[in-house]
Structures are given as structure tokens and as C-alpha cells.
């Protein structure tokens, strides 16, 4: 009898932990020794998921330069704005498209003028070696191709709809994912033949996906915007970070990751 209740207790406590909801990933670079007597309270930056790797690197460089540590919270741009509306504390917001930054401004989360710090274009992600010989958007519309795209409601989905309309191609995807990470994941796991992702996501796949560029992508760039959060009291620090992101060293890091200049 006692063993049964112990098992039940263990199972219950495990289920409680298993039911934890998904939350945006956060990265905390270990802070260096405090220098120059500045506040070592990390600057909180909310940024789009596609900026995860590149902003973490920029954050480490920024800390080395300015002695100010940063703490990132990465997630879907719309999610982040919703959190900020709900009162989550943050100092800087970086979104993957203009529409979401506009929503943030409409909601009063951002009052200052945002700065464009990078642009991104779409590309086709395929398995290494491009086994199906995909060379254009039209190839994706061939019968039997398993194509995965972002849903219309997210930034990369809206851009996908625009470029396919420009190219006069009608896709019949097998899945419309909520995030570009999921699209890439379906390609790298071999479930899908191809997917439409951001240029920068190919680098993040670390060799498990290849890119196939198409001409229509250049006409529909997505602007990445950064702005200080209105409710933050650390206006100088926030502006310092924003200035750093638009400075040549950070722009170099962004360029290396595949982002294009604003």
C-alpha cells in the first residue's frame, strides 16, 4: 500500500513539472567583474527569436566594451509585445518586423522612434545536397513536394505570402508553422522536402540545411527594429545598447550571421 502511494506521489510531482508551459528561451551571459563603479544590474532586452544567436554575441561584446551586462529574453515578436503589455519589465525591445513594432507603439509599450538595425530576406531551405534539385519557388509547387511554410499570422508567413504572390506561384504546403524555427526543424529532420525561412536561419542550422535563393526575395525585405521600452527607467543604458547595435562592430556581427544592412 505504502509503495503504491509513494509511486503515485512521485508520478504526481513529475506530472506537475512536465506540465510547465513553454516560455521564450532566455540567455544569461555570465557577467564580468564590475568595472568603473557602474551599475551591474543586467540590461533586459526582449528580442525576436531569429536574433537569438547573433544578439547573444553582440551582448557579450557590448559587456566587454561598456562593462554593462545584458540579459536576453528571446521569443516570437508578438509574444514579447504581449508580455510587455502585461507589465513584464524590460529595457529594450527588438522585433523581427515593422508591423509588430507598430503594434508595440500603438499599445504604448514603445514611445521613442525605433531604429532599423538590420534587414532579412527569405530563402528556401532544403536538405544538404539538395536531393530534389529545387532551384526556384516554382519548383516548390510541383506535385508531391512536401513544403512547410510559416503561417500568415507571423512575420515570415506574411512575407512568404508576398513573395509567392510576386512570383505568381501557388504553394500547397503540408503545414503552416507558428515559428520559423519549426519550419527549419521540419526540414532538418527530413520530414519536409523544403521550407521558406529567413536567410539567417540557414546559418543557425549548422550544416543541416542548405539554402536556395530566389530573385523575388530581395523585393520583400523585413526590417528589424530596436527601441527602448517606455516603462524602463534606464534610458541612458538602453540608448547605449541601441547605439552599440547600430555601430560598425555589431553590424559586422550581424552581417556575418547573414543579416543585411538597414
Amino acid at each position, binding site marked *: 500500500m505504502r509503495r503504491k502511494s509513494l509511486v503515485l506521489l512521485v*508520478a504526481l510531482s513529475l506530472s506537475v513539472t512536465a506540465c510547465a508551459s513553454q516560455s521564450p528561451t532566455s540567455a544569461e551571459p555570465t557577467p564580468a567583474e564590475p568595472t568603473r563603479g557602474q551599475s551591474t544590474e543586467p540590461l533586459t532586452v526582449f528580442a525576436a527569436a531569429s536574433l537569438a544567436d547573433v544578439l547573444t554575441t553582440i551582448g557579450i561584446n557590448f559587456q566587454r566594451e561598456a562593462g554593462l551586462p545584458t540579459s536576453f529574453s528571446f521569443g516570437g515578436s508578438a509574444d514579447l509585445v504581449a508580455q510587455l503589455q502585461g507589465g513584464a519589465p524590460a529595457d529594450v525591445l527588438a522585433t523581427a518586423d515593422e508591423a509588430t513594432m507598430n503594434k508595440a507603439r500603438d499599445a504604448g509599450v514603445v514611445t521613442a522612434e525605433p531604429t532599423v538595425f538590420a534587414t532579412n530576406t527569405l530563402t528556401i531551405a532544403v536538405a544538404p545536397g539538395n536531393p530534389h534539385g529545387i532551384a526556384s519557388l516554382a519548383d516548390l509547387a510541383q506535385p508531391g513536394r512536401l513544403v512547410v511554410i510559416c*503561417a500568415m499570422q*507571423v512575420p515570415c508567413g506574411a512575407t512568404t505570402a508576398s513573395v509567392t504572390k510576386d512570383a505568381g506561384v501557388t504553394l500547397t504546403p503540408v503545414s*503552416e508553422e507558428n515559428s520559423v524555427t519549426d519550419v527549419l526543424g521540419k526540414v532538418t529532420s527530413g520530414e519536409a522536402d523544403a521550407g521558406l525561412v529567413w536567410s539567417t536561419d540557414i546559418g543557425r542550422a549548422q550544416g543541416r540545411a542548405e539554402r536556395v535563393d530566389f530573385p523575388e526575395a530581395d523585393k520583400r525585405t523585413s526590417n528589424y527594429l530596436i527601441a527602448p521600452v517606455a516603462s524602463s527607467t534606464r534610458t541612458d543604458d538602453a540608448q547605449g545598447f541601441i547605439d552599440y547595435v547600430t555601430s560598425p562592430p555589431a553590424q559586422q556581427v550581424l552581417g556575418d550571421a547573414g543579416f543585411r544592412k538597414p
Partner: protein
Amino acid sequence: MTSSRAVGATGSAARLGVPAWIWPPALLGAFFVGLPLVALAARVDWINLPALLAAPDSLAALELSLRTSAISTVVCLLLGIPLALVLARTRIPGRAVLRTLVLLPLVLPPVVGGLALLQTFGRLGLLSSALDLFGLRIAFTTTAVVLAQVFVSMPFLVLSTEGALRTAERGYETVAAGLGAAPGFVLTRVTLPLVLPGLISGAVLAFARSLGEFGATLTFAGSLRGVTRTLPLEIYLQREVDPDAATALSLLLIVVAVLIVALTHRPRAAR
């Protein structure tokens, strides 16, 4: 999980009071569960609710959810009852291991379940060569949704039925067998009717769990309107652009779940 009340539970036990100190934590528990639902209902845009719910995407998601959950519950019954019987009524070695395996989906995060299903039934999965032989593709189909739902809901049915089987009166079955009934007859005409309350309770839980399944579906089946985008997936998507629509659909899901549970989970009076 709860075991079914033994037949003949006395009413006198129910009339014994409970200690007064249990009321504060009980009320706290009730508020903790009820208040978020009340808050959600308060947030709903009641004027636009009919329009939001009647949108083609919403109806497609609801229809898909109900259809797949119903199929999943039937599959759970067909596979789960025999499994519960093996666990409760046989003496095969390794029952403890089997029980642990069956209960594993309860503690696994659903996304992990989805990944595991992908590794099994996916294009590059364990069974991929067998599936290719029959020309079957499971990923991105409604079948994948059903598989994901069965995976996460089966434990509820098995647990509930096994519990009921363990505590059921064996007397009737012994008499039936003694009178010459075949095991199959004993099972369908004596055993199962005896454990029906636990069985139904397990089936209702399985249905409700299937209705709310999200992580495994998203990872394994993908998200396409009318094919794999169940109501939870639709809510998750609508959050990106239309929080009002997401709230309305959330309310719909809650109402459907409440109806299902209320209609089938009525407490039985002691005989």
C-alpha cells in the same frame, strides 16, 4: 487516480463531518482553479463572440478537434481495456515495467512525446521503411493527430480502468465462470458492466485530454487548417494577430470540455 466506489458504500460514512480546517485550503484550491477561468470569461469580447466563433477557421478547427478526439477515445478504449485487463488480471512477468511504460506519457512533456512519435513514424523514423513499403505517409496527416492524442490520453483510460478492475467485486465473475461461462462471456457480460463507472470516467478524461492536446500535435503532425490544426493550435496561432479571437476560442474550448465532463461524470448514488 480515483478507484470506483465499492458497491454498497454506506451513506452513513458521508454524513460524518469533515474537520473545519480543511475548508480554507479547499476554498483556496477552488479559487485557484476557478478564478483564471472567470478572468478569461471577463476578457471575452461578448459582442463579437458569435462572429469570432463562426469564422471558417474556427469552425474547421472545432470540427477537427471533435472528430479526432472522438476517434482517439475509441482507439484508447479498443487498446486500453485489454491493456488494463493484462495489468490487473494476469500474472505475466514484467507487469510493473509495462505499467511504468503505459504511465510514461502522463509525465512526459507533450513536446517530448511528439518528438518520440516523430522518431517512430516520421519519414526518417524507425518504422519508415515499413511505412514506405505500404506507401503510407503519416506525418502532416490527420492520422498523426489521432496518434498523438492516443499517445497522451491512453494512460488516463488504462489507469482508471485498471483501478476499477482491481477493486471490483470478483464474486460475480467467479459465479459466472463456475456456472460454465466462457472467459469472453464473463468479460463482456459481467466484468465490464461492473467496472463501467471507472471505464466511463477514464474515457471522458481521455477525450478531454485529446481535446486539449497541443505539444505533441504541433511537433508531430504540423499545423494545417482542416487537416491538423486542432482548436488548441488555432488558439495558439490566433494569439499572434487577434487576441480577441484567441480568447473567444479559448472560451469555446472550455465550454465544450465542461459540457463533456458534466454530462458524463455525474456522481453515482450509492446503491
